[in-house]
């Protein structure tokens, strides 16, 4: 008998949505392949995490301080041992910052195929087919998993999380494993710097991407945010350039925001950016490229040049306010 293993992700006691997404997807796969689904919870407080993973047939818990934050060197061999004990053929790893590199490490350790950017999974005549999202979401590739064996790194936002949530009490197992001594040692968390605007609490975000071109142009967005009563956030390149502080970054490595209005200016809408903003109530995208992926998730869009639109928009809002 083989099994599907799902590595649950948690940060500071909180189970991430991706864990439920993967559990839901694994559940479906497991039912079709008639294979049990085993969740894996690792870390100092893994039992508390495990309690929330009732959608799995059972949860493998390893409580060890060295596993609090996943590292390739320590977590990799631990999962490998669990795979061997349970004869796991398919392993789902979260495609998140925290679990970064684990999929490739497991592939290197087990010599199983590794598929990155997994965005879809289906079973066709008993054979597992993985859909991988490449080139920042511009190209999809269907890849068969030979012998239904492989390590999959799952992109957040690919599967519905509700399918992986269950009130059922989880069955807990505590297998014995060797936790190797690491050459990479976790020292401490570094909390995001306080003092700046908290973009997760704003109703209105004017968000700028590489299309804003220069640091000086940020002022345009600031003015617009001013009349809208909101704040300015940005995509990764804008923050990497130092044009906005780290606290303003939206996306995978940055903040997850759910404002009433997300106005995206010159943002292409890469999957890593979408991860942080797809929950906004209203998304309006301004991008000169009609094919930009941001339009796939925006409610309204325009291909007007942002440098022409922003002043016009500011004026129109001011006019309306004066009229009101």
């Amino acid at each position, binding site marked *: 008998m083989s099994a599907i293993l799902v590595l649950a992700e948690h*940060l500071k006691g909180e189970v991430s949505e991706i864990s439920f997404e993967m559990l839901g997807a694994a559940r479906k796969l497991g039912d079709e392949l008639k294979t049990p689904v085993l969740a894996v919870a690792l870390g100092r407080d893994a039992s508390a995490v495990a309690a929330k993973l009732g959608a799995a047939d059972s949860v493998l818990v390893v409580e060890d301080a060295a596993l609090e934050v996943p*590292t*390739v*060197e320590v977590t990799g061999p631990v999962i490998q041992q669990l795979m061997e004990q349970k004869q796991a053929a398919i392993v789902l790893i979260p495609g*998140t910052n*925290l679990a*970064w*590199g684990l999929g*490739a*490490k497991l592939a290197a*350790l087990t010599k199983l*195929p*590794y*598929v*990155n*950017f997994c965005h879809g999974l289906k079973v066709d005549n008993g054979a597992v*087919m993985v859909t*991988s*999202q490449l*080139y920042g979401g*511009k*190209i999809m*590739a*269907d*890849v068969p998993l*030979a012998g239904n064996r492989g390590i999959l790194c799952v992109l957040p936002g690919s599967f519905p999380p509700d399918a992986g949530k269950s009130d059922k009490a989880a069955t807990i197992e505590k297998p014995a494993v060797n936790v190797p001594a*690491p*050459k*990479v040692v976790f*020292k401490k*968390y*570094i*909390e*995001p710097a306080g003092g700046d605007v908290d973009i997760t609490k704003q109703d209105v975000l004017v968000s700028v991407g590489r299309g804003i071109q220069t640091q000086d142009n940020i002022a345009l967005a600031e003015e617009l945010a001013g009349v*809208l009563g909101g704040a300015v956030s940005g995509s990764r390149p804008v923050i*990497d350039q*130092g044009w906005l502080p780290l*606290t303003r*970054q939206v996306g995978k*490595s*940055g903040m*997850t925001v759910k404002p*009433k*209005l997300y106005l995206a200016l010159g943002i292409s809408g890469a999957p890593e950016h979408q991860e942080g903003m797809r929950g906004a109530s*209203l998304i*309006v*995208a301004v991008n000169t490229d009609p*094919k930009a992926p941001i*339009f*796939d998730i925006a409610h*309204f869009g325009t*291909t*007007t040049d942002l440098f022409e*639109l922003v002043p*016009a*928009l500011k004026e*129109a*809002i001011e006019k*309306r*306010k004066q009229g009101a």
Partner: protein
Amino acid sequence: MNYFVLLKMVPDTVEELEVSADNKSLNSEFLRFKLNDPDEHALEQALLLKEKFGGTVTAVAFEAPEVDEVLFTAVAKGADKAVKLAGDFSNVRGPACAQIVASYLKPLPADAVILVQCQAIDDLEGEIGVYLADMLQLPYVGLVAGVAIEAGGLTVTKEFAGGMRGEFSVGLPAVLGIQAAEKPPRYVPVAKVRAVMKTAKIETVDVTPPETPGVLAVEKMYKPEVAGRAEMIEGSPEEVAGKIVAILAERGLV
């Protein structure tokens, strides 16, 4: 310290990507290649480390269109050495790439820091940094956003989520997947690159790709079905602005 930076050429996604007739690969006829954007951060981080702690920076790339210019640019920015690994890489992905780089790097200096970017957009298997570290039996940390040399090892900052980061200590030699350099990548004028092209040399090393290429085979490649949810607003900037304001007003947002 010996810093090795791996630079990868990837298709420029600003251009329209087309799938070729076999439905299994990209149509290379229309592809323009450029340096994997974030690799600039790996190079920048190496240059910053060199400036702060001393050492030499070697930029390493596989033979590919336009790669010479990328390597000369690295030298113009401050790299001490540029190396081009030459061979037939048509079927080489993740693990095989790592094997080639590993054999080039051996014997590895005890104070080597190998800087790669975390991930390229074009690789199904990806993350050669991880494979490389595994082959060379070195520690690996990815998504690195800060590096310092301390007490004979490295102190690195890794990005988690929500702006949270973690600090790790790492023994040497090591492989780092750089996500963001501590400073934005430096700019170098084209004139300087041209000047470097006249004086600097790229060292070409012939390598033989391993027999066993990737185990994965793409069955079908295609463009995603666009959900196309956005309702597009047309007109002059003023008209578009007016329509957006109306939409916002309807929702009580202005």
